[in-house]
C-alpha cells in the first residue's frame, strides 16, 4: 500500500513538473503582456512536431531539437506578437484570447490535415534509455530527466524575472510602459521578446514530451485545459504560483488516479472551483 502510494506520488511529481513548465510560459505571457495565450497548447504541439520532423526528415537528434525547436517556434511567436497581438494592446484581453484561440484552431487543423490523428512515435534518446529500480517502482531515466530539467528551467525563469535587473524592467513595463519608455527602454521590443520566450517555453515542453506521448496534432489541446486550470489556481500571472501549483496539481491528480481513477480528469477543476470560491485571485495572486 505505502509502496504503491509512493509510486503514485512520484508519478504525480513527474506530471506536475510538466504542468509547471507549461503553465510557467502562460503565466509569464499573462503576467507581463496581459494576454491569455490560448495558442499555448498548439505551440507545445509545434515544438514536439518540429522535433519529430527534424528527426525524420533531416536526421536532427533530440539534443539539437531541444535547442532548435524552441528557437524556431519562439521566432514564430515574435511574428505573431509583432503582426497581431501588438494591435490588441490596451483592448479588453478577451480579444487576445479569441485571437490566440483562433490561431490554435488553425495551426492544429493544418497539422491534422497533413499528418492525420494517430500521430507518430518519437524515440527516447540513447543516453536516457533504461531506468532505475527504486524498489517500490521502476523509474525510467527519461522521466527523471524531465523532472530535473523542468524544475531547473522553471526556477531559472522565476529567478530571472523576480530577482534580476532584466526582470525588474519587465515588471516595470507591465506596471507603467510609458514611464519605462521614457527611461530609454524599448518597451515594444521587450514585449515582443517576452512573448517569444513564453512561446519558446511551450515548444521546449513539447520536445520534452515527444518521447513520452505520441506526437499528434491534438496533443496540446488535451493538455491545455488542465494547464489553464493550474494558472488560475496559482493566481493569473503569478510565476511562482504557477510553478508551485503545477507540481501540486500533478500530485493531487496522481493521488486521485490511485484512489478514484474515474475522477482523475475532474479533480483539477474541482480544485479550481474551490480555490476560486475561497481566494478569487488564486493561491498566489494579488487582488487588482
Amino acid at each position: 500500500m505505502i509502496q504503491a502510494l509512493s509510486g503514485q506520488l512520484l508519478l504525480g511529481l513527474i506530471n506536475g513538473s510538466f504542468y509547471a513548465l507549461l503553465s510557467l510560459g502562460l503565466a509569464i505571457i499573462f503576467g507581463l503582456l496581459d494576454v491569455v495565450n490560448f495558442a499555448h497548447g498548439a505551440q507545445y504541439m509545434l515544438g514536439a512536431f518540429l522535433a519529430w520532423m527534424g528527426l525524420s526528415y533531416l536526421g536532427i537528434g533530440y539534443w539539437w531539437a531541444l535547442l532548435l525547436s524552441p528557437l524556431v517556434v519562439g521566432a514564430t511567436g515574435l511574428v505573431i506578437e509583432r503582426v497581431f497581438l501588438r494591435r490588441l494592446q490596451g483592448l479588453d484581453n478577451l480579444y487576445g484570447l479569441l485571437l490566440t484561440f483562433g490561431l490554435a484552431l488553425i495551426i492544429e487543423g493544418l497539422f491534422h490535415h497533413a499528418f492525420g490523428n494517430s500521430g507518430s512515435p518519437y524515440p527516447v534518446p540513447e543516453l536516457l534509455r533504461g531506468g532505475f529500480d527504486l524498489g517500490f517502482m521502476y523509474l525510467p531515466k527519461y522521466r527523471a530527466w524531465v523532472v530535473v530539467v523542468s524544475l531547473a528551467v522553471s526556477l531559472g525563469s522565476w529567478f530571472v524575472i523576480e530577482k534580476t535587473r532584466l526582470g525588474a524592467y519587465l515588471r516595470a513595463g507591465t506596471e507603467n510602459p510609458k514611464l519605462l519608455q521614457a527611461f530609454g527602454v524599448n518597451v515594444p521590443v521587450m514585449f515582443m521578446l517576452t512573448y517569444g520566450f513564453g512561446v519558446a517555453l511551450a515548444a521546449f515542453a513539447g520536445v520534452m514530451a515527444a518521447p513520452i506521448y505520441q506526437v499528434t496534432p491534438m496533443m496540446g489541446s488535451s493538455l491545455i485545459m488542465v494547464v489553464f486550470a493550474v494558472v488560475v489556481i496559482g493566481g493569473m500571472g503569478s510565476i511562482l504560483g504557477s510553478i508551485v501549483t503545477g507540481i501540486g496539481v500533478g500530485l493531487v491528480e496522481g493521488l486521485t488516479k490511485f484512489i478514484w481513477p474515474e475522477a482523475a480528469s475532474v479533480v483539477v477543476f474541482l480544485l479550481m472551483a474551490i480555490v476560486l470560491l475561497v481566494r478569487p485571485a488564486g493561491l498566489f495572486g494579488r487582488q487588482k
Partner: protein
Amino acid sequence: MKIRLAFAAALLLAAGTALAADPKVSDDVVKIGVLTDMTGYYSDLSGAGSLEAARMAAEDFGGKVLGKPIVVIGADHQLKADVASTVARKWFDEEKVDAIVDLVSSSTALAVMPVAAEKKRITLLSGPGTTAITGDKCTPYNFHWTYNNWALANGTGREVVKQGGTTWYFLTADYVFGKSLEEDTANVVKAAGGKVLGASRHPSPGTTDFSSFLLQAQASGAKIIGLANAGADTINAIKQANEFGITKKQNLAGLLVFISDINSLGLPTAKGMYLTTAFYWDRDDASRKWSKRFFDKMKKMPTMVQAGVYSAVTHYLKAIQASGTDAPDAVAAKMRETPVNDFFATNGRIGPDGLHRHDMYLVQVKDPSESKYPWDYYKIAKVIPAAEAFPPVSDKCPLVKK
C-alpha cells in the same frame, strides 16, 4: 397541331413509364450517408477512409442501382451522441438519405439506431463494438458488420489464456464501449479458466499519461494487462508500458487494436502483441487487390472498419438490385437471407439480430526483422471460424423469436 399532339402523347407515355418505375427507388436516388468521426480520436481508423471506401463501393457498383444514381455523402459526428442523432434526423427528413454507414463509437451508434428504426431506414455499422447493438438495443433495420466486443474478447481472451496468460488486469476506457469490452473479456477469461485480478477505469478521451494505471496493473501481479480501450489511449498505454519496463514481466493484450495504431506505434514497440481483427489487407489476393486501390487514394492501408464499410455498402446495394426496390423492409430481408463472400468476409451470414457473423483472425504483430515491405505487420496465427468467432443469436434481442 398534329405534331404537338404527338409530342404531348409521347411525353405522357414517357411520364407513365417513369411513374411506373418510380416506387421502386424512393426519391429516384439511393443516398448513403457516412456518419463518423472525421476529426477526432478515431478519424484515422474510420473518418475520411470510411467515406472513401463507401464511394469506392458506389463506383464499383457502376454508380447506379436499378437505373437510379447512388449518391454518397459524409458528415462528422464529433464522437457526440447528440450531434450524431441530430445529423441523422436531418439526413432522413430533409436530405432523403436511405442508409447511414459506419457510426464509429458505440454511443453514437446507439443514438442513431432508434432514429433510423423510427423512420424505417437502414443502418450499417462498421466502427462501434458494443454487443448491445445486436442485443437488447437491436432494431430490424440495423446491421452490425465488422466486429463486436464479444468477438474481440473471445478471439484474444481465449487464445491468450490457452497460452498460459491465466491472470488478467484491465485498463479500461471509462465509457460504454470500454466497460462492455472489459466485461465481455472478463467473462471469456473466466470461462477459459483464467482469473481477473482487477481493473483501472481511466477517463477517455482526456488521459495522456497512463503510468499511474500501469503501475497499479503492475502491482496486481497479473500476467496479462488487457487494454480495453482504443485509438490514442491504446497507443499511449502501449508506449508507456514499454517505457516503464512493464512488458518485461507482464504481457499486453490489445483488445481493440487497428492497423493504423500499429503503423503509428512502429513495430519495435508493438512487436509480439496478439490481437483479433476482422480484416488484414495482406491476407489473400482479393484483399491485397482492393487494399492497394484504397492505398492509392488514401496513402494508408485500410483498417478493418474501412474495409467493412465497403463490404457493407456493397451488400446493401446488391440487396436493392436483387429485391428490385430500395424499400427498407424488403432490402433488410434480402440482406439477411443472402450470404456474404467478398474480399472482406468469408462465410458471412447475417442473423435475425442483425449481426454479421464471419471468420475472424487472431494475428501477431511481426518483429521488425520479419517485416519485408511497408505495412507488412501481421502474421495470421489462427483463423477463427464464423461460428466460433461471434456470439450465438442473443435472446436479449426482442426481434429474435423464442
